[in-house]
């Protein structure tokens, strides 16, 4: 309460505030306009779209484009339903595996003493901070040799246990009191049970919001499916390939309908969990 009162009382000098407002408004307008433009374009007929691209409102409102999108958009025999399915398992799998492995690593590194603990921590930090540019070639070749290239087993590569997720969750575990675990040990719980029944549920709010952010990130990610999963097109990679292979005879309104539909799940998640996502982005940052 106090904070907002002070901030409001402290007025900016007028010309600067107006200038900033204009910049903000213009920037926001371009984002809003492009979304609205894409939506109205998705309702036009293909000829109307090519002839009157710049006009905002369609002459005829063809909502049927959205139904057509389900039938027309396909990439090498994979219909849009296959793409949705691929997006789902990839996004849920990547987010779930990396959250679980990273939180287990973070828990052990912050709460237990063992030989090599500092080494694990140093390796994780070094992996984040030191860039290795050639590693893409090496990992591509390794995935092929291991036989996980172009199979769902590619999900195992999310189980690195490091990265931003590790940092956020380990700082969370540092704040959790060890007394719960001591009490449980006296009652005869094993270490594994302490983790799954006490510690993980305690960290669930933090892990949950990271899961959401990672889910959105990997739902939108086009690079992993294009690089490593050419036979499993997700919505992001599939729609990109669809536009690329049908450059000259593409039905743009239907294509727009498809790409807008592909945003619906992440958009809904964002609207429902806006505060959670916002707070975990402002601490961690969104990848992808």
């Amino acid at each position, binding site marked *: 309460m106090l904070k907002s009162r002070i901030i409001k009382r402290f007025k900016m000098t007028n010309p600067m505030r107006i200038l900033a407002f204009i910049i903000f408004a213009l920037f926001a307008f371009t984002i809003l306009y492009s979304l609205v433009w894409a939506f109205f374009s998705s309702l036009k007929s293909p000829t109307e779209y090519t002839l009157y691209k710049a006009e905002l409102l369609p002459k005829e409102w063809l909502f049927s484009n959205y139904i057509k999108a389900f039938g027309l958009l396909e990439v090498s025999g994979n219909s849009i339903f296959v793409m949705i399915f691929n997006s789902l398992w990839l996004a849920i799998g990547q987010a779930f595996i990396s959250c679980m492995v990273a939180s287990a690593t973070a828990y052990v590194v912050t709460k237990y003493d063992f030989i090599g603990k500092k080494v694990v921590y140093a390796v994780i930090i070094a992996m984040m901070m030191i*860039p290795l540019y*050639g590693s893409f*070639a090496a990992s591509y070749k390794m995935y092929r040799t291991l036989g996980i290239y172009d199979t769902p087993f590619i999900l195992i590569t999310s189980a690195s246990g490091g990265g931003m997720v590790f940092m956020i969750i380990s700082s969370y575990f540092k704040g959790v009191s060890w007394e719960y675990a001591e009490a449980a040990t006296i009652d005869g719980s094993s270490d594994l049970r302490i983790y799954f029944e006490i510690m993980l549920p305690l960290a669930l709010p933090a892990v949950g919001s990271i899961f959401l952010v990672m889910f959105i990130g990997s739902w*939108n*990610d086009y690079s992993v499916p294009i690089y490593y999963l050419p036979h499993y097109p997700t919505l992001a990679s599939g729609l990109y390939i669809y536009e690329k292979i049908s450059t000259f005879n593409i039905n743009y309104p239907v294509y727009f309908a498809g790409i807008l539909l592909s945003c619906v799940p992440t958009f809904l998640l964002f609207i429902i969990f806006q505060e959670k996502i916002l707070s975990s982005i402002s601490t961690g940052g969104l990848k992808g």
Partner: protein
Amino acid sequence: MAFKDQNTEEWSVVNFQIFFNDIMRGKDSEILSNVGNTLIYFAVNLMMIPLAFILSYFMYKKILGYKLFRFLYMVPMIVSAVVLVSIYKNMLSSSGPVSKVYEWLTGKTAPFFIYDERYATLTIVLYTIWTGLGMNIILFSGAMSRIPASIIEYASLDGVNPIQEMFRIVLPIVSPTFTTLMLLSCVGVFNASGPILLFTGGMYGTSTISYWMYDRVILNNQYNYASALGLMLTLISLPIFFVVNFLNKHVPEVEF
């Protein structure tokens, strides 16, 4: 891998020879032009940080409609890059809305922004600003919202004006965010590559290092040459990394 000849699988330095031969070609060098383009994106990423700081100060001051702005600036992070790029591309295409505005402003026919070597890189740079600036603003205003209200109140009792408040009080307090963003973009110099794959597929002189890697490894199966180049770039950027890290540790911490 970098030290192996791909055809014979024997140890050799042939990959490094190709690399140095390419660099020696000067202006025609494929790698140098890729590095040049990458540095453009890197410079833009760096310049975006102070700009975002100034803008997010106004957002912190709860400018009219700030909640709506914050929501809209989040959109590029929520919507997939594939979607944004294809909307952006189509708005820029001939007789699209942006071309119409361009013709109205200048009176000339709009060029093919993406399919013209003179404009292609600039167009993609504008796209990265368009989608990236909002993210930086959100990060900064998140950090600012954690500033204790009492500090701002003491300052206003002492008669501090907004500009002094912005640079002498808010800036030092959010300096960790500032240096982290700087550090991340310096460390990832050669990763700052823009969505080249989605825009042009490396044509029209837009190719950057990370796109080049994709092109060599996946489209041409030249793993070993790509690893050699990666190794060289890592060697180049390690000193940058240590200098930045050193500077980062010597920025005075603010207690509050």
